[in-house]
């Protein structure tokens, strides 16, 4: 066996051991060393040279990056997640035909979809979705994310929140918690427009706070224009936008002048 490959796989074993111990500091440490070592393999993307050990090297590298992605979720680092995921992606797309399919693939793709949803990058979410085959869409991990997006777009926020209980994998919980925060902001925004007022009790339930105190703090920080009186929250203030009765003269002048100019050109 190639000495370099042996070195990397030994180090990866240590990484996995640390990973199981939940010693994430040394994991991160080992990971950065591993990544440096991986750059020496010429069979990996972007070179994809067909060396004799190519398949073994690709498999090892794929597993390392898969662990890296999961690790980034555990240490709650979204940027690292994005980086690691993009490094991992070519192994699924470009090298997919040469390697046996990975057990982790759908789990990780689903995680990525969820991340995009949490970060409210819906366009990218759909771009990723287009890349998935029909069988992938049937997978529970992917399905979970897709259904979440649908409920989210419809506005069925209850369904989004209840989905937390049946998350397909423990790593999903982190993103689901983040999603709950996004959902709260969405609900606040919707309520502001949809209701004239809400009793404090209802508002607390709707915005998923456990105590009135938390609710009042939230209002203070995020929505100072809401008014709290007589045991209710009034949104009316934010909605006061009387129809403008003034004639938009400057705009009209500009428009008329541009018509004149264009007509001049035609005649």
């Amino acid at each position: 066996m190639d000495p370099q490959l042996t070195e990397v796989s030994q180090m990866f074993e240590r990484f996995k051991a640390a990973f199981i111990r939940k010693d994430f500091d040394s994991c991160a440490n080992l990971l950065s060393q591993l990544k440096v070592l991986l750059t020496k393999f010429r069979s990996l993307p972007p070179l994809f040279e067909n060396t004799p050990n190519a398949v073994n090297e690709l498999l090892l590298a794929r597993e390392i990056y898969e662990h890296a992605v999961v690790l980034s979720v555990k240490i709650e680092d979204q940027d690292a997640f994005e980086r690691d995921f993009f490094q991992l992606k070519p192994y699924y797309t470009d090298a997919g035909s040469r390697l046996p399919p990975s057990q982790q693939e759908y789990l990780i793709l689903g995680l990525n979809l969820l991340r995009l949803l949490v970060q409210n990058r819906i366009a990218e979410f759909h771009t990723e979705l287009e890349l998935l085959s029909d069988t992938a869409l049937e997978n529970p991990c992917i399905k979970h994310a897709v259904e979440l997006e649908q409920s989210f777009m419809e506005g069925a926020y209850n369904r989004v929140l209840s989905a937390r209980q049946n998350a397909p994998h423990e790593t999903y919980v982190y993103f689901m918690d983040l999603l709950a925060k996004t959902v709260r902001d969405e609900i606040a925004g919707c309520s502001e427009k949809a209701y004239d007022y809400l009793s404090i009790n209802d508002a607390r339930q709707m915005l998923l706070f456990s105590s009135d105190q938390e609710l009042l703090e939230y209002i203070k920080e995020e929505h100072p224009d809401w008014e709290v009186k007589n045991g209710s929250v009034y949104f009316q203030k934010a909605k006061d936008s009387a129809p403008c009765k003034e004639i938009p003269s400057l705009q009209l002048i500009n428009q008329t002048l541009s018509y004149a100019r264009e007509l001049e050109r035609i005649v």
Partner: protein
Amino acid sequence: MTQDVEMKEQPAPSNSVPSSSPSTLHHLKEIASLIETGAYDREARRILRAIRLTMALRRKLKASVLSSFLSFALTPGSEAFTRLSSYLPKEDENEMEVDTATSAAQPPAKHSLPELEIYCYLLVLIFLIDQKKYDEAKACSSASISRLKNLNRRTLDVLAARLYFYYSLCYELTGTLSEIRSNLLALHRIATLRHDELGQETLLNLLLRNYLHYNLYDQAEKLRSKAPRFEAHSNQQFCRYLFYLGKIRTIQLEYTDAKECLLQAARKAPVAALGFRVQCNKWAIIVRLLLGEIPERTVFMQKGMEKALRPYFELTNAVRIGDLELFRSVAEKFSTTFSSDRTHNLIVRLRHNVIRTGLRNISISYSRIALADVAKKLRLDSVADAESIVAKAIRDGAIDATLDHSNGCMLSKETGDIYSTTEPQTAFNSRIAFCLNMHNEAVRALRFPPNSHKEKESAEKRRERQQQEQELAKHIAEEDDDEF
């Protein structure tokens, strides 16, 4: 569409077999001289015309005609000649002899123009594709592309653009499109360096097509946004570009832009390019539905499209009524069509619009309705769901209403008098702007060919030209059909 073309074409070979071969050859020779003059005068327009004439001859091409044309146009024994001849199947021994005999009389020295050589490649390639000999076509196209890379002449651009197109087509037909991606990128780079705008345009489209074939929307958009843009040279290429752009925009949820691109592509496409227009319409319908518009019935009744658009018609109907149950059953009924059109994911997105439309209908009909009834009418699972869905619809401006949480009901607001706002004025302004813009574009699009005053065509010639143009349109239609 293709059927009646074939019906017209079929009698032609059967009754004119003996005479067609020399006349086709004769036509080809004329085209060759056209290319020659074009190359000497540096007039790309003539070469463009030559290609158009070739397309008219496309169906009459035969191996024997081609091989005799090759020996006419190329120096026998030259590298290109031997290579191209090897792709052609051998048949009709005696005819071959006759042809070589006649061509031997021609002085071979003057026919060494690179334009002519590339034209021969193009001709053989088209022939091979028409004969469904895709493997030979692949070999031939690759050879022609590597030859093209070494030639740098502006008069070649038109021919090269065509070659690129067929190069990609034969790889697509054999399902190996991903193989040529890096090659296309290299060609695009070369075309950019040589200021070959037609080539850039064609290659950009081919690359976009290549990416979209594998659903790589991300890469396609990155390439598109960074590639240099300029005034379109060819209407067909521009249509394709708009279509691909529309698709990308749809996936990225920029529906307003997408709609504009797709509708424009459908309008600009030649009438005969039915397959292309059907595709554009399918996508445009979905995008309009996603925007919350309901396409008019006439869209679905366009000539030759009724059948293809049928699933989309039923879908539109479900969205228009706002019936989730009907929507689900339509989506299931036509699921194979939708997944072969690769619009399945978009249709999943539509569910949300069905709810919106249903909600809007309720909001218009009732001034006050309990949320429990809303949930029942929209067939939602729970009242809580209904409440948050209504709240979101209000925030997004889909309906004008308020919610009363304590009584659990939705109160619709009276619609205000629209004429008291500036709304009509802005609508009027945007229409005027559209008309003025249209006028300006029409003026800009007028083209005056440099030699138009010299060539005064007789009535007969004009008729002939018009006929050729019609045939050309048909061929474009078929090309587009091939693509889908």
